[in-house]
């Protein structure tokens, strides 16, 4: 009797669950979530041991970096890696599906997490830590990683919320009045964006009856009625464009990114908007592979205007941090351009640009953080004489100036060439022109910043800048920056592996057959499906 019941259960399990045990390597897929979750809860539990928080966070990020590196190599070698949470057949359970783009972004995330944790470990006071800075950091990283790795649209929403609330926590550290003002703007506008994401997901479920990306890719072409799904597509693109801070709905970013602590700004600049861009990749690739021409054109114009508006905003600023905020926006425009072109090369350019932008913007924020620590000033007109003060800082900053402007031989060059090629090959000459113009304007903005703050001698200002050069010799602050700058240079000099990953990622985004197959093959075997 009991045996029969057990047999029944086994039979039912065979129908509802994946039968093969996951390889140990498949666990790499979930580690970017589990490790920081455990670390974050550990940090909060150890509230009394504030001194250990930073070490725990750095260790976690380092471990994640190793795992993510292994994951990327695995993906590059074996193709898409899948893990079915709870062992349930997709699309019924939640799956993590990792392709080259996801793995690449997750790796970049953990590296940036490590650098910022390192910097923060030497920059933050004990009270900030006590209120959970590193826990927020861990949660932010897990949210971002989850967003990069998940294969389920509602789960993506959840990760968006995780990273959002973590960013809410981070943005308020610092104890300045303007932070609260900035945080209000940031919070309200971002809340609207994620809520729109949620409702679009509800509609999507109502139309298709499924939430799994791969399954959606199969179901949507069969739909009888295109109007609702196009609306949902428009809503998605809108919500993600807002998260990505694209014009005209990205005002929240320049309105708030300059207010938090610099190390927080560094994290945000590196990670947050890219999640929006990544979501656009996914949705574009799997859910709405052939969007309405109007949507595509809109996206194209949005991307171009975002580039220009962003960089013009950067030129107009005096506050160095605000300049960087606008540059983040401008970079988003470049990535969106790649998406809007809708070609494999476009996606490749966008992926390359995203990785570059993540590293460079984080590094720039950290460098500005060092500068502010040393000078206690934030306005370009109030800072000068840095060139003489530290050659190390000069090299670092100048490298970043050239990188962010897209000049070779640094990380910004390759994405620009790739995007340029993508634009030119589909005869979008104007887009190519705007892309190049943006690069030029960026070099103007950053070149002026360099001239004003570095070259201009300290004596040139009425209030001569007081520079505490000890900050520049503090390895705790300079080494993380140097690490990122080393990556910027390495990406410029040895971009091949990045191209390999981006090529594989972009071809997967254009033709997601492998993604779909990897996700649903097991289900098809059991239930009978397209691949049978």
């Amino acid at each position, binding site marked *: 009797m009991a045996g029969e019941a057990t047999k029944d259960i086994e039979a039912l399990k065979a129908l509802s669950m*994946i039968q093969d*045990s*996951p390889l140990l390597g*498949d*666990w790499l897929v*979930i580690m970017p979530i*589990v490790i920081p*979750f*455990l670390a*974050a*809860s*550990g*940090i*909060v*539990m150890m*509230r009394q041991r504030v001194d250990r928080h930073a070490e725990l966070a750095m260790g976690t990020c380092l471990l994640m970096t190793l795992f993510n590196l292994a994951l990327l190599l695995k993906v590059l070698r074996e193709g898409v890696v899948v*893990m*079915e*949470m*709870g*062992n349930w057949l997709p699309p019924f359970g939640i799956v993590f599906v990792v392709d080259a783009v996801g793995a690449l972004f997750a790796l970049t995330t953990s590296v940036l997490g490590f650098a910022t944790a390192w910097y923060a470990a030497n920059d933050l006071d004990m009270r900030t830590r006590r209120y*959970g800075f590193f*826990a927020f950091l861990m949660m932010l990283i897990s949210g971002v990683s989850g967003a990069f790795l998940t294969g389920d649209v509602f789960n993506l929403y959840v990760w968006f919320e995780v990273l959002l609330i973590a960013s809410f926590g981070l943005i308020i550290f610092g104890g300045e009045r303007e932070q609260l003002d900035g945080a209000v703007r940031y919070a309200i506008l971002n809340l609207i964006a994620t809520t729109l994401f949620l409702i679009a997901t509800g509609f999507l479920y109502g139309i298709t009856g499924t939430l799994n990306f791969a399954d959606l890719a199969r179901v949507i072409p069969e739909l009888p009625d295109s109007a609702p799904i196009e609306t949902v597509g428009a809503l998605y693109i809108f919500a993600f464009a807002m998260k990505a801070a694209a014009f005209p709905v990205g005002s929240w970013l320049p309105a708030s990114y300059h207010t938090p602590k610099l190390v927080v700004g560094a994290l945000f600049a590196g990670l947050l908007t890219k999640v929006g861009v990544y979501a656009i990749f996914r949705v574009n690739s799997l859910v709405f592979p052939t969007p309405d021409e109007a949507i595509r054109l809109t996206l194209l114009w949005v991307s171009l205007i975002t580039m220009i508006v962003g960089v013009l905003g950067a030129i107009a600023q005096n506050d160095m941090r605000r300049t960087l905020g606008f540059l983040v926006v401008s970079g988003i425009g470049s990535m969106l351009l790649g998406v809007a072109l809708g070609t494999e090369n476009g996606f490749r350019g966008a992926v390359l640009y995203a990785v570059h932008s993540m590293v460079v913007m984080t590094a720039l924020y950290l460098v500005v953080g060092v500068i502010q620590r040393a000078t206690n000033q934030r306005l370009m007109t109030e800072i000068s004489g840095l060139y003489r003060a530290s050659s190390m800082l000069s090299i670092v900053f100048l490298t970043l100036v050239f990188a962010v402007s897209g000049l070779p031989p640094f990380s910004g060059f390759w994405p620009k060439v790739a995007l340029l090629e993508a634009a030119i090959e589909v005869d979008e000459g104007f887009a190519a022109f705007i892309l190049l113009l943006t690069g030029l304007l960026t070099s103007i903005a950053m070149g002026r910043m360099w001239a004003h703050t570095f070259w201009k001698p300290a004596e040139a200002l009425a209030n001569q800048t007081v520079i505490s050069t000890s900050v520049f010799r503090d390895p705790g602050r300079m080494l993380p920056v140097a690490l990122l700058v080393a990556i910027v240079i390495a990406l410029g000099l040895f971009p091949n592996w990045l191209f390999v990953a981006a090529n594989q990622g972009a071809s997967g985004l254009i033709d997601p057959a492998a993604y779909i197959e990897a996700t649903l093959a097991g289900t098809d075997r059991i239930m009978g499906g397209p691949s049978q």
Partner: protein
Amino acid sequence: MNTVILRTIAPFLTSLMVIFSIFVLLRGHNEPGGGFIGGLIAASSVAIYGIACGVAPVRRAMVFHPISIAASGLFIAALSGVASLFAGVPYLTGLWYFPNLVEGVKIAISSPLFFDIGVWLVVVGSISSIALALEERELD
């Protein structure tokens, strides 16, 4: 609030609500309820206790800082999924164990149960810590 009536009745209500919340938690897998709802009920009870008797007694009663309790919940929940690593199944796969305590009395120990307990702890801890912090803020 400094009234005899509320102060007298609040501890009683609190204990009642905590019991109810645990009941709702444990029963959630089969009937309406579960970790969230249970947690919200328990958090409500903490709020009542706090309003009636003040924050300090609540903090003493909870022993640990509520946010640490919440963190332990997240820890438990995240860890409950890792158990499946050793069972050779993917993350968060439900693992079930039905020991016979007394003859005929079957209870179920399962990873989803621990997961739900984690949910309960997180909700209780987190909401209590917000409420208590706001309550303390009132006084300063």
